[in-house]
């Protein structure tokens, strides 16, 4: 087969996939962009409304803050879990892996509702806290930021654990032993050897978790209070209550632009193609 024919064949084989991508991804996105400029009061009206009003800026700030807090907490939990996964063997390793991966198979809605039952005023967590004497009155764990953080960290944890695990598993254990042998304390070994060698994995995990948090809807909507409104909840109210689709489209485009900006900044530290590699 001559090279030119081969290339033509490859292109031809790619056409169906490209067509599907264009039909289900590019066309709807272009339509969304079109709708965002279709407000009756003028093409930029929806954007002036979304970007110019202090309440929407507050919602946007809130969304970023929640995403940042979720990412930080998730990374702090994920690193030790990922490290333990590299050290465990046999049944224990399978068990911890199952704990990380199994939740991914259960619908986010089901997991969020389960948290409502666990965290409610007379739920098991509060009963345990009160009966053990740790607190006098049941804690308010639902319909506030605490509920949102607990629920979102739980849902997004696997996306933090897996990239960090993928990085840690590639670290040569003899390097850690060498550090120890040269007299470094555990903290020094962690800070100067383990962390630098796994930094790409941590950055990938942070980007993944942050991006997913930005667009999260179900968990904050069900576990959060009035003041924990996020941009995705606002978009939902524009779509279903206000029926103002140009406004909803403009808010979505702003969210998308923010996400792209974050990927652009993150790509200075990690290669975006690595995001696809972690799951191998």
């Amino acid at each position, binding site marked *: *087969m001559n090279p030119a024919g081969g290339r033509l*064949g490859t292109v*031809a*084989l790619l*056409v*169906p996939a490209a*067509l599907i991508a264009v039909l289900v991804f590019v066309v709807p996105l272009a339509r969304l962009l079109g709708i965002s400029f279709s407000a009756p009061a003028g093409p930029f009206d929806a954007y002036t409304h979304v970007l110019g*009003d*202090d*309440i929407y800026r*507050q*919602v946007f700030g*809130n969304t970023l803050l929640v995403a940042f807090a979720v990412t930080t907490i998730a990374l702090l939990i994920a690193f030790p879990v990922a490290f333990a996964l590299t050290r465990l063997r046999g049944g224990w390793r399978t068990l911890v892996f199952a704990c990380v991966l199994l939740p991914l198979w259960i619908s986010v809605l089901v997991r969020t509702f389960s948290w409502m039952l666990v965290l*409610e*005023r*007379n739920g098991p967590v509060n009963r345990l806290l009160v009966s053990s004497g740790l607190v006098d009155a049941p804690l*308010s764990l*639902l*319909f506030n930021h605490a509920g949102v953080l607990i629920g979102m960290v739980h849902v997004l944890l696997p996306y933090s654990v897996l990239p960090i695990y993928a990085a840690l598993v590639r670290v040569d254990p003899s390097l850690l032993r060498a550090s120890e042998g040269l007299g470094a304390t555990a903290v020094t070994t962690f800070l100067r050897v383990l962390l630098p060698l796994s930094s790409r994995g941590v950055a990938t995990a942070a980007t993944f978790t942050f991006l997913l948090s930005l667009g999260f809807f179900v968990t904050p909507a069900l576990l959060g*209070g*009035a*003041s924990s*409104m996020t941009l995705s909840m*606002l978009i939902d*109210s524009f*779509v*279903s*209550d*206000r*029926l103002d689709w140009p406004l909803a489209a403009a808010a979505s485009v702003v969210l998308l632009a923010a996400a792209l900006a974050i990927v652009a900044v993150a790509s200075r530290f990690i290669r975006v193609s690595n995001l696809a590699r972690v799951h191998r």
Partner: protein
Amino acid sequence: MLRKRRLLLSLGAASLASGTLGLPAGVARAQGRPLTFCSWGGALSDLEKTALLEPFAKLKKIEIAFASPTNYAKIKAMVQAGAPEWDLVNVGGRFIDQGKDVLETLDMTLIPNARALDPGWVTSRGIFTSTGATVMAWNTKAFPAGKGPSSWKEFWDVRAFPGPRGLYKQLYYNYEAALLAAGAPRDQIYPVTDEKIKLVFEKLREIKPHVKVWWTAGAQPPQLLSSGELALSSAWNGRVLAVMKENAPVAMTFSDGIAWGNAWVVLKGSPQAKVAMEAINYAVSEEAQLRLLDAGTYGPALGSAAARATPEQQKILVTAPQNARQMLIINEGEAARYSAKYEDDWNRFLLA
């Protein structure tokens, strides 16, 4: 090798072509589908199915499909795409005004039974087929059944009635409740003015620190009240009555309640518009409306049916004189206006 590739390509092209050319077939299927009714789910959908629509289906010897929950955005999208999957929909009265572009104008010659209804329940695009109310409900461990709040003023009184509260997630119902709590007489609630709105937000800011949940779904208040998460909440009466029948520790009062109706509308472009209107006609017939009495959740809209209620049934009936006397009837047109006009202020209030 090459031949195999070409085969794959032509298969791909064929499936794509059938994907687009297949569209008219899809539309044809939509016309052949049964009359489809969509409502809010829960006690209301059950009631509408068994009391109003299944008997109609039997009478007409047709099939009816049921869907839930009602979603205004979906209605708008389906009608604008020219292929509504629902024909007959139960909407909040507010939507008759908000969604007038996507609703069919009703042919009143097909709905002669509407003449027997109170004129307030009949509009050119929607007819109210049952009645309900947004009432105060509470957990009976927090306050015994007869000892809950009996007015919105008392609902606002956090000393006499301590505990976390629930209110609806939108200005809808809260506008009325806040004004009543401020002591405005029932005939002074409408029309909406800027001064009244100012007073509404002042009153709402007062209660906000005690509002733990701003609910969005009718199922939430009964669930949160019975689990003890909330001590008292606004709620739809039918949902509360439904859980009270299951002996949940929840009680309610019609006193100072906000009465409304469940409006049935026909979507523009529905291939079954005529049958849908005939279904509305049957739903407001005395025969069908009397069945609502036995269910004991949402009451009839037809006065002559409500008048036949037993004293026991009257207790839980929105339209029974002794209950109706203590309630405000919501003005859906005004509600549509204040909801749209003050939505940004409402969001600002929630976030502050």
